[in-house]
């Protein structure tokens, strides 16, 4: 079947989708967006977390056909999503969004990287780098999407709030303390910016 939906602010069409296919499979294997990770395929680990109409969900548990006409934001579109939110509250002009080609090539190269190839990062992404919250990196995309969503509606989270919001994201490098640091850092920077 064919599925029409919006990915990172751009209209997309996925063809030859199997009826039992997950949104995660469509994103990774049909759109070429491997940022959302495929690990447990049963909603236990959170590494496939994306936003579906703004709500964080495990994309492995959303049937592809269920996203018809709906909006998905993946980690590849997070930088632009955060930028639009900071500048306009949301995407108002229609000129925003991240194309699939941009998303496919997206890499987290911070503006102060020594290679000089700066990429616009979401504040939460920059905070993860600065706090050293990335180890093997497999859980990172899901954590970024979940943490960014929490900071959107709860700009001054307590540690308990952070733990609760990230309780569906497993890190097997046991790096939670740095992850906590990163989210606190992002929250503090967000507070300064206002």
């Amino acid at each position, binding site marked *: *079947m064919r599925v029409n939906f919006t990915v990172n602010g751009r209209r997309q069409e996925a063809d030859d989708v*199997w*009826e*039992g296919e*997950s949104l995660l499979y469509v994103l990774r294997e049909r759109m070429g967006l491997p940022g959302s990770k495929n690990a447990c*395929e*049963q*909603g*236990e680990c*959170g590494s496939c*977390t994306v936003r579906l109409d703004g*709500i*964080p*969900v*495990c994309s*492995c*548990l*959303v*049937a592809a*056909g*269920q996203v*018809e006409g709906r909006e998905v934001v993946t980690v590849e579109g997070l930088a632009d999503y955060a930028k639009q939110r900071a500048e306009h509250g949301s995407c108002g002009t229609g000129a925003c969004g991240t194309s699939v080609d941009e998303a496919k090539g997206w890499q987290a190269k911070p503006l102060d990287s020594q290679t000089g190839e700066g990429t616009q990062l979401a504040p939460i992404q920059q905070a993860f780098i600065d706090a050293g919250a990335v180890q093997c990196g497999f859980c990172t995309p899901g954590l970024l999407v*979940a943490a960014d969503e929490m900071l959107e509606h709860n700009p001054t989270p307590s540690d308990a709030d952070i733990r*609760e*919001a990230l*309780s*569906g*994201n*497993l890190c097997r490098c046991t790096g939670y303390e740095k992850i906590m640091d990163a989210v606190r850092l992002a929250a503090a920077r967000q507070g300064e910016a206002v």
Partner: protein
Amino acid sequence: MDFLRPASWEEALAAKAEHPTAVPIAGGTDVMVEINFDHRRPEYLLDLNRIGDLYEWEVGADSVRLGASVPYTRIMENLRGELPGLSLASHTVASPQIRNRGGVGGNLGTASPAGDAHPALLAAGAEVEAESVRGTRLIPIDEFYTGVKRNALAPDELIRAVHIKKADGPQQYSKVGTRNAMVIAVCAFGLALHPATRTVRTGIGSAAPTPVRAKAAEEFLNAALDEGGFWESGKIITPSVAKQFADLCAAACNPIDDVRGTASYRRHAVGIMARRTLTWTWESYRGTAAPTEGVA
């Protein structure tokens, strides 16, 4: 496999009548796991996401009509006052991502003995609104669970909503698992005090082939509270009464040994949870209903 996308409830009922083997999918948190792991290859998936009614709830005089697809997150945020037991149970469901998608309709449809909502529904008192092209019926929650992952729905029926009694007293929910988040219950217990009718209701999860009430325990406690004048006096529950209630709750279990726990552990834990939830709710009841004098 065919993917059916009804745009309205009437279309969904028609599709289910035409294809009784169709598997309804809303949050997908049960169905997609089975498909991802190749445990299930339904002929038809019946997507209920486009039916807005299923995401709404109405608070009535005596009960809440909760749409089948209202996510657990919404229940926690909006219905804590009316449905405290179910709100507590909702908070123990998996993780935020899962609570954003899953709802009570799916828990009932799957009818797993480990479903987190069941003990709270049993304790509060509820009816399942099932509908087909033939008509609507309300199935009392006590008659809904018919076996391990089996329920009273006919093949052409869909769950539209659950009518849950509004709390008329304190409610509690307790769940045993290996960690706080992302855990399937080893066993669970729900308890609701109903001061309006001077009754106590219970619900046990994961300790029998279906979710069950501990009816003998309820009858014992109702009689003991009545005879002792506890509802009027608001006095502390006699430890021997609490113990007898806990023992009867443990006896209501018919558990199995499995990877999550042994049968004897489950029986023991249900007894402990029964005593604790009774104490918590009763203390809460005393806090509001007890006479002002003599409460140290």
